């Protein structure tokens, strides 16, 4: 699908969305769907659930674009990351925990079968341990280790300062190091 206004800033597109412009909304969706999906997937570890959350977030934005107020929020993506994180947390509270998809492809295709199996097990334990972390530590990890988001942006999403974010990250990593000792 062709993007209507590839050169327009997010804020300009949102102003048009507030006036009911579908092409502006489509441009925003095309531009940002993947990044928000990646974050939702980090939380939910399930493709369908992550897609549902991202779809829900965008439809809420379309339905009531007045919720976005540029004066109060510096960046659309920071605000929308927060929306997606909140929806993921709500989703986790409402639904039963999801089973990790065992058929999920591994990133490195050159591994041997044995290496791949070991890595799969390692990843499964890692995801389990991350899911067991306190909510804020988990959010800090998911935001910071998701490609394309800086620590400062992650801190803004969580409405905390950079030092507090770093402290959450350190505590999360200390816990993970203890629990993943046999894999390190």
């Amino acid at each position: 699908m062709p993007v209507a206004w590839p050169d327009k800033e997010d804020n300009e597109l949102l102003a048009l969305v507030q006036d009911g412009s579908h092409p502006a909304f489509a441009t925003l969706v095309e531009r940002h769907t993947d990044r928000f999906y990646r974050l939702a997937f980090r939380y939910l570890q399930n493709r369908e659930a992550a897609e549902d959350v991202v779809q829900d977030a965008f439809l809420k934005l379309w339905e009531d674009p007045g919720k976005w107020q540029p004066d109060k929020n510096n960046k659309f993506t920071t605000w929308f990351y927060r929306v997606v994180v909140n929806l993921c947390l709500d989703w986790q509270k409402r639904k039963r925990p999801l089973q990790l998809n065992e058929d999920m492809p591994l990133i490195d295709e050159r591994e041997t079968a044995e290496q791949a199996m070991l890595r799969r097990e390692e990843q499964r334990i890692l995801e389990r341990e991350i899911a067991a972390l306190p909510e804020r530590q988990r959010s800090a990890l998911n935001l910071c280790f998701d490609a394309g988001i800086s620590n400062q942006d992650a801190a803004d999403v969580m409405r905390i300062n950079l030092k507090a974010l770093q402290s959450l990250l350190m505590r999360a990593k200390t816990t993970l190091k203890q629990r993943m000792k046999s894999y390190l």
Partner: protein
Amino acid sequence: MDRNDDQKLDSMLHSRRSQAASSDLAARIIHKAQAVPQIQRFFLWQSLRQLFIELHLPKPGYVLAIALVLGMFLGFSTAPQYFSTTNSDGASAQSFLADDEGLL
């Protein structure tokens, strides 16, 4: 050792497995949005602005100020006619009162 653990953990966190979204996810969202009506929030100032835009009037603030000044000007300039005692209504009222006083 601890430094190695840190590096290994960071590497594991960076290479967390992921599954790509469906290729039509964005298209699905865009398509669904077409069936969802937008909530219209009512803001007085925005509504006024919209009204002025539709009426092709420039800058609602200026137009309101000009309308106010014009209104005051017209109001002050036309007021004497209504309160004048020289018109026919005023004259008939005066003659009526005069008749009343005659009875006393």
